[in-house]
């Protein structure tokens, strides 16, 4: 059993790198777009709010796998011939962006309107109010769920194995195909995912404790 685990390490390592690469791209992109979308949902004009709301509700209302299949098989039809990596990443970016939009919206809305008023009363402009009054307070509500969504993104990468992207999950499958010993590899794979996501979860709890003294 140990022998099987050891000899599979190089393939698994390559798969892990792909997993991390995808996760990083997804997390960074969805953070940038999602925060903007979330802010627009709270402060923007009605039409934009509705469009973003539609996007967010639809994407979050279907399974991730369906989204991945739809994007992977559907994109070539529109004429865009992207490789499977780009398609998979796009699908996960869409999913993660919808999540980040919701998290941002929730954290911004949780700030009492009195804070905006106090900011107005001392003469701050709208951008100043967002930066100095609202965002610092919203952070506390934003970070824990956002770190959760990062863990979700990492777990989501496993589904990309179903469209041929050689991430950690597919690497595990491939090694099993060669060695015919499923259990050791599944356990090893589980441990690797566990270490990554559990660390994120601990970070999230640390942050929640740190901000706990804020109190409304």
């Amino acid at each position, binding site marked *: 059993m140990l022998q099987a685990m050891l000899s599979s390490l190089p393939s698994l390592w390559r798969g892990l790198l792909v997993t991390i690469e995808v996760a990083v791209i997804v997390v960074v992109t969805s953070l940038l777009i999602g925060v903007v979308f979330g802010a627009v949902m709270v402060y923007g004009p009605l039409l934009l709010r509705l469009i973003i709301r539609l996007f967010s509700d639809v994407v979050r209302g279907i399974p991730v796998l369906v989204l991945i299949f739809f994007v992977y098989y559907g994109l070539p039809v529109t004429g865009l011939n992207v490789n499977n990596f780009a398609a998979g990443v796009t699908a996960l970016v869409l999913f993660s962006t919808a999540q980040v939009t919701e998290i941002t919206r929730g954290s911004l809305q949780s700030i009492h309107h009195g804070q905006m008023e106090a900011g107005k009363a001392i003469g701050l402009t709208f951008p100043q109010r967002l930066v100095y009054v609202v965002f610092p307070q919203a952070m506390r509500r934003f970070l824990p769920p956002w770190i959760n969504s990062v863990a979700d993104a990492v777990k989501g990468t496993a589904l990309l194995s179903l469209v041929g992207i050689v991430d950690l999950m597919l690497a595990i499958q491939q090694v099993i195909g060669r060695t015919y010993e*499923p259990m050791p590899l*599944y356990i090893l794979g589980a441990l690797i*995912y566990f270490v990554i996501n559990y660390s994120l979860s601990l970070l999230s709890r640390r942050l929640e404790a740190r901000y706990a003294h804020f109190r409304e």
Partner: protein
Amino acid sequence: MYHLNFGLIWRYFDKLDWGLLLSLELAVASIAIGVVIGLALALLYDWGGRTTRTLVSIYVEFIRNVPLLLLVYLVFYGIPTVVNLQYDATTSFIATLSIYAGAYLVEIFRAGLVAIPRGLIDAGKAIGLTPWQRLIYIRLPTMFRVVLPSLSNTFVSLFKDTSVASVLAVPELTYGAQWINFNTFRIVEVYTVVTPMYLVTGYLILGALRQLEKRFAVR
């Protein structure tokens, strides 16, 4: 130029409507078993000593931090190689999703138990109820009302997670969609139909459970 042709979708629609039904069945079965697991472990956690708590935590943290897909493979392909058990894909998936659900539900039930106002328990003690009676007549009923919103969200989540069963060729909705995709190449049409199927079902479930919440609302 791609020409939309929904005709083929309607021809094979039985794959989708029976698939949706199976997805719901999988979800219901998993949450039912999951509730049993989750509740039992939450009470055990509340009641037990350090070792129990650690064991429960290990279970919860392990399941929650590992992708569902990996768990599905592990149970279906892995376990039969080390233990002398035989089961089909559907049974395997329900077992996996139940264990998965259980891990999330433990946390929800624990939070619910903690949220019960001290005063209610003290009132129970004051009229002479035993710990077991307090559990059955006060704590559990109150807890259920409190966790109902979280339960609804979890149920819808699990319903969406049933799509992973498609990798084991369990003929639920996503498998049906992929079947139609591979046999007719009508990718856009099939997912245009399947997307609202998931969405509407999800909203209906939430709506129905919201009605339930109203009936049992915590004052």
